[in-house]
């Protein structure tokens, strides 16, 4: 059975690209366009991994992780943060909140996202 990945991201083109890439690699994807939606979706879908953007309307990535940490089940789901910024301060905060990995959009490309996903949950 294909592994489920939840993409929490507000930018259409990014969603589109990630979905395409992940589907090609054989993953099953679902999408949430802000933090609130993301939390709702992860409760319903129970994904194997979450790709999480930081700056989003409604609730940002840090807020999502804080909420996840309050729930025993959600806390277990590995998170890879995908952000536009590579600020050490933000990186630290994401790590403290339990993010498994971190990607800066301008520095990585879609293939590297796949590599990191595989590293976390396998194919």
């Amino acid at each position, binding site marked *: 059975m294909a592994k489920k990945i939840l993409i929490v991201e507000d930018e259409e083109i990014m969603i589109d*690209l990630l979905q*395409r890439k992940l589907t090609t690699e054989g993953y099953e994807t679902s999408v949430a366009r802000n933090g609130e939606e993301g939390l709702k979706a992860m409760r319903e879908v129970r994904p194997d991994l979450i790709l999480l953007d930081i700056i989003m309307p409604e609730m940002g990535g840090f807020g999502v992780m804080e909420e996840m940490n309050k729930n025993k089940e959600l806390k277990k789901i590995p998170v890879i943060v995908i952000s536009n910024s590579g600020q050490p301060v933000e990186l630290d905060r994401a790590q403290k909140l339990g993010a498994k990995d971190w990607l800066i*959009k*301008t520095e990585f*490309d*879609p293939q590297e996202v796949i590599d990191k996903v595989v590293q976390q949950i396998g194919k």
Partner: protein
Amino acid sequence: MAIKEKNKEKDKISILLGDLASLESYAKDLFSFLPLPVCLVSSIGIILEVNPALEKISGYRIEEIIGKSAEDIFTEEEIEAISKETIERGSVLAKETSIFTKEKRKVPVSASTILRKSEEGEIIGYFIGLFDLTDVKKKEKELKDTQLALLNMLEDTKMARQVAEEERDKTKAIVTGLADGLIVLDKENKIILINPEGERFLDVEAKEIEGKILETLVEKPSLKKLAELLSTKETKRGIFRKELSFKKPTERILEITTVSLPPREENVVILHDISREKLIERMKTEFVSLAAHQLRTPLSAIKWTLRMLLDGDLGKITAEQRDFVEKTYSSNERMISLINALLDVTRIEEGRYVYRPTFNQIENIVQFVINSFKEVIKRKKIKFGFKKPKEKLPKVKVDVEKIRLAIDNLIDNAIKYTPIGGEVTVSLICGKKEIEISVKDNGVGIPKDQQQRVFTKFFRGANVMRMETEGTGLGLFTTKNIIEAHGGRIWFKSKEGEGTIFHFTLPIKEEFAEFLKKF
């Protein structure tokens, strides 16, 4: 008897004649001996007799002067007046006049006269005695000159006082009207003067604090803050543009500069309000930061789309299409690196750039950076050297990523601006307190007239702009800030057409632990 009597008479006369002769010679001797020039003038103004003293003063010999008219040697009107007065009153006492010598020189004299009458009471003429006034006149003139000089000096002093007063008023007007705050402290830090802006900035009133020692006025928070700054060791040498922020009466950032006035060891404290500059600076930095962040989002979208196109994730593309997409991709990459450099600059300006330094071996960091250039070194056939001491270097406390970036910028420049087949050498030297790293090339060099601007934002050498279109002009600005944030120094030597050598230092171990706390 008659004969006897006659002889007796004869004897008497001869005795009297003898007496008379001796009297005459006495008078003559006295006349010639007298140091005062004297002459006898007849009632009609002819000189009848003169003594040697008059000969001397007039320059005429006796035979020349006797028989001359008095008017020949005296001023006409004056001698007329004198003779008239003498005849009327019998004498004249010390009347100032002058005589003319044989050489026509005018000699000032004081003349006194006495009338001379015959036994019958007939006026024969008068004696005129002279007193040479040349010396007196000279002394008088000197005295007058001295007096004049004194008067001039007095006038000068008056003028000087006036100028000083004007100057004082001017200074006062400047001090009062100055847009900067100004405080003058004496040797003991007693407040001698504070101008209105100073009062406003520090929320104090001049009449309450003037004459008091600054350190005793600690109940006012603003003065306490200022006193603390001024009591530091550096203050003795003078403060230059030190920032101090105040909460009251309004939020304000002041730039403090002190100037000492040597004669009385007074200290002038200048308070310059830079709140507005600071605000604008912050707004600018925030704007650039925000703009750069906003730009990154679409740039990553473009990057990912192009990458997927190139990877064939979005279907097959032709070789021609691939070529175009690849070029677009690399343009986009350049744009991303420019935005990143801009963001680095804003972080430097916000003072939050160097982050969490750790102890590291600098030679490893340098080696790591050199490795990333292997390909381009090969491609450009650069003779590359890395000189380092044989023994292990002491550790330095650095933000590894930032130091890598700094070294990367220097080596990148060296290689970029050195022609094919050129030489680039990186050296490490270990000193007592610091490690010095240098990057030397024999490339195009930096034009002399532009060397001063090398470390400023967006600087690019004129010669370099012609040969390489790429380059943000932010590399060396960033590098300098990184090095200085680590407590190091950076400098260079360069000659156009011959090459450039950049040096920088990093302090060893705890030397700058205090310094880093700020970041």
